[in-house]
């Protein structure tokens, strides 16, 4: 059973637009939610992360929105650029096994110039 469900599978956005990727989880014990960015042929790299004690975290053009009651969180990329074209993964981990990340299935983002 997939612990973290991610959508959409792929996304095409025009340059300057907003990219939105959504994730949902079942395990209410999860308390750490990172987002990773992966370029072809490379390993994932941490982009931004959030804990459930806040509803939003912003770093530059990247924002995580967190809805604890709905067990959902999302990544918003403002002013999307062609260089943002990559695959994005959400993940979650519980406090009792916080080294064990459960990843979503990924969203392939293509930002058109």
């Amino acid at each position: 059973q997939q612990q973290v469900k991610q959508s959409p599978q792929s996304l095409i956005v025009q340059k300057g637009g907003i990219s939105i990727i959504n994730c949902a989880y079942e395990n209410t014990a999860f308390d750490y939610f990172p987002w990773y960015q992966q370029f072809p042929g490379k390993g994932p790299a941490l982009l931004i992360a959030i804990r459930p004690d806040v509803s939003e975290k912003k770093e530059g053009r990247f924002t995580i929105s967190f809805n604890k009651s709905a067990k959902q969180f999302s990544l918003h990329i403002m002013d999307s650029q062609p260089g943002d074209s990559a695959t994005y993964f959400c993940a979650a981990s519980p406090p009792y096994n916080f080294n064990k990340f459960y990843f979503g299935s990924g969203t392939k983002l293509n930002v058109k110039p």
Partner: protein
Amino acid sequence: GAGVSQSPRYKVAKRGQDVALRCDPISGHVSLFWYQQALGQGPEFLTYFQNEAQLDKSGLPSDRFFAERPEGSVSTLKIQRTQQEDSAVYLCASSPQRGERGDTQYFGPGTRLTVL
């Protein structure tokens, strides 16, 4: 400085062969993780080391999979009697702290294993 490196980058094995995948973590990093990433999927946790101690191997899919980190630095993931379903990218990640909460995991580029 150098990041996490993995070798080989690509490995083709015939079904039934044994393979060994190497991970060189960032120097001084205490924690080391192995993940399996199937095509079009997110990484799935395999195992975790803190120094030379394997603290969690709950994600290893079968007893054909074995990982070691004998001196607390380089790690090897060994797959015995490879099967077609083992075809995937195997990612290694390391982190500097002793598995502290919110510790960033730095990933290597992965080894793409294809079993024919």
